């Protein structure tokens, strides 16, 4: 990669007017290098790694969606279309940097080593969350919009007390940005100069609500107003996202205070497997964004950069194996056992739950004996 000082020239710029900054791009939708890409250079090796991550993530979505259609999952929220935003950012963080995701960050989660089974169990109704955050340093999903941004902010204030050079990253959507909590977090992190990276995947929609209803100015403009170091990036250009995240986190580690990255991307599918996006958006709009597909552009770029068939073939095979794993892991997911849950509400003993645990067990016995 190029020296950050060089990147600055492209990434920084005016952001106060209501239009905001142009979004930073290294690779154009047609897979060619942009002017910035030409100047700064793009590592093909990195590009291959990130592309592989994206291919696997998309494969997870495809499999999970069809598992949902087969009744193996109750619901699935696709990261389809947002792979570059997630992969580019998470791969630019250190593995030791803690992450507070929202609920659509499967691509990022996979990069942190979270298994498909762990990602799917929540959507099968087996549990409310899939993994222990301590290992992957990836918190459980937060479904109440925006709440996780405050958790990240608090977590980051601990990092300051302990004088580490951690960055704490949090993901959220364009819709969530309207919540009081998210704005409290911007302000809190800015006022305290805390090492938080706010990463907004602006996928243009919050279920059926377009960003025009959510906000008047681009989010990175709002963020700058709070005093966050704010960036605007093509969220479908994985190399650009990686570069910008690298720059932003370096500055945070240098004590520059919190930053926000607004990544322009698109949710190719419905809000979830239950949503029918045709009710609220046009085929034309979707078609326009398909031209900006993050995977297609990288494939073209890599083929242009002479990543040979070997690479693509190996990857295709890896993806097929992965797909089989996904299916297998999904089918292997067991349901929960209500009896176990009484112990997982409190750490210390609790008489009400102790009594109810017994009552429940007794009820099961009675039922059993009646049948």
């Amino acid at each position, binding site marked *: 990669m190029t020296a950050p000082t060089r990147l600055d020239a492209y990434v920084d710029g005016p952001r106060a007017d209501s239009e905001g900054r142009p979004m930073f791009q290294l690779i154009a939708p047609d897979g060619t290098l942009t002017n910035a890409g030409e100047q700064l250079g793009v590592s093909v090796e990195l590009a291959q790694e990130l592309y592989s991550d994206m291919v696997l993530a998309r494969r997870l979505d495809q499999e999970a969606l069809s598992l949902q259609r087969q009744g193996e999952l*109750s*619901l699935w929220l696709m990261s389809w279309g947002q792979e570059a935003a997630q992969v580019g950012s998470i791969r630019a963080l250190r593995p030791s940097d803690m992450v507070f995701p929202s609920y659509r960050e499967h691509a990022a989660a996979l990069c942190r080593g979270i298994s498909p089974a762990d990602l799917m169990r*929540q*959507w*099968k*109704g*087996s*549990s*409310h969350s899939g993994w222990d955050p301590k290992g992957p340093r990836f918190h459980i999903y937060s*479904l*109440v*919009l925006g709440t996780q941004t405050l958790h990240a902010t608090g977590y980051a204030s601990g990092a300051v007390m302990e004088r580490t050079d951690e960055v704490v990253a949090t993901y959220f959507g364009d*819709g*969530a940005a*309207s*919540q*009081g*909590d998210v704005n409290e977090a911007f302000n809190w992190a800015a006022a305290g100069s805390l090492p938080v990276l706010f990463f907004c995947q602006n996928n243009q929609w*919050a*279920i*059926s*609500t377009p960003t025009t*209803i*959510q*906000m008047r100015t681009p989010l990175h403009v709002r963020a700058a107003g709070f005093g966050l170091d704010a960036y605007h990036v093509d969220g479908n250009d994985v190399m650009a996202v990686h570069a910008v995240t690298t720059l932003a986190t370096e500055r945070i580690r240098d004590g520059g205070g919190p930053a926000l990255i607004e990544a322009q991307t698109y949710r190719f599918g419905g809000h979830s497997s239950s949503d029918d996006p045709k*009710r*609220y958006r046009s085929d034309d709009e979707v078609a326009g964004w398909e031209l900006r597909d993050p995977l297609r552009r990288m494939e073209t770029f890599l083929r242009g950069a002479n990543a040979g068939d070997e690479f693509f073939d190996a990857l295709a095979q890896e993806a097929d194996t992965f797909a089989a794993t996904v299916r297998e892991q999904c089918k292997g997911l067991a*349901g*929960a*056992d*209500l009896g176990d*849950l*009484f112990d997982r*509400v409190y750490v210390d003993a609790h008489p*009400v*739950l102790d009594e*109810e645990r017994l009552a*429940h067990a007794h*009820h099961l016995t*009675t*039922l059993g004996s009646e049948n």
Partner: protein
Amino acid sequence: MTTMTVGAAINAGLRKAMEDDDKVLVMGEDVGVLGGVFRVTDGLQKDFAEGRVVDTPLAESGIVGTAIGLALRGYRPVCEIQFDGFVYPAFDQIVSQLAKMRARSGGRLALPVVIRIPVGGGIGAVEHHSESNEAYFAHTAGLRVVSCSNPDDAFHMIQQAINSDDPVIFYEPKRRYWEKGEVLTSPTRGLHDAAVLRSGTDCTLVAHGPTVKTALAAAAAAEEDGFSVGVVDLRSISPLDTETLRNEATSSGRVVIVHEASTFVSIGSEIAASISESCFYDLQAPVLRVGAYNMPYPPASVEDDFLPDVDRVLAAVDRSLSY
């Protein structure tokens, strides 16, 4: 009289209220083009001016807070909260502002705001989408809290709630949205009247919203076993129709309350406390409660075990009869 689902009945009731009074507005997340995630507001934005059916920014405190401002100007906003578990960001606006504005203003101001909340479990949803939080609002002085259980009530109660000059929390039984029933042209009862759906001489079940159907099924099962079990549909949670409750409790002498919420400090606690007091000499058994175990709503794979079902209700009836 026509037949429709609970969801369609609320839609029809909203439409009727909007036609009758052009101060009635519908607002919330995705209520416009999409018609709400449960399609309860389907078609309303198309048929009324856009300003009357508003897709809001994603901010529940904002929804209730701006609805208060609109109500102060003479509108009658009907806010949709997308799921029960997402009402809490609006809690301060509901509890400190909506509920208290009339008292705070010395009776000068009124806030005719309705907050619609799809409530409860049973649809296989992920966390925060299956909660039963009636107790919070019932405990809050200044609010009215109602809960419909069938299409006829859905149609009439939403209109009565909108006509109320006081704020009303309007609970819609999520897992019953698709159930059909007859809707009469005129309401049979006031917004705050309980309905005795069947009288019972041995025991009375008290339910509301989604558990009414469960209670009716339990009563039918008990009948097969030779017991006469009545069912009261509360319809109104705050205020409670204590007179009807007292009458039924007195005549059967045994009461079992069935709701989806956890039982600790709940509507069930209130009904038990109130009946135990008012029918002290008439009760043959203590008032029993069947509700959620006191834990956060569990993952969907166990919700059938978790929700009060006919078996748990009958077990409680048995226990009541054993006194």
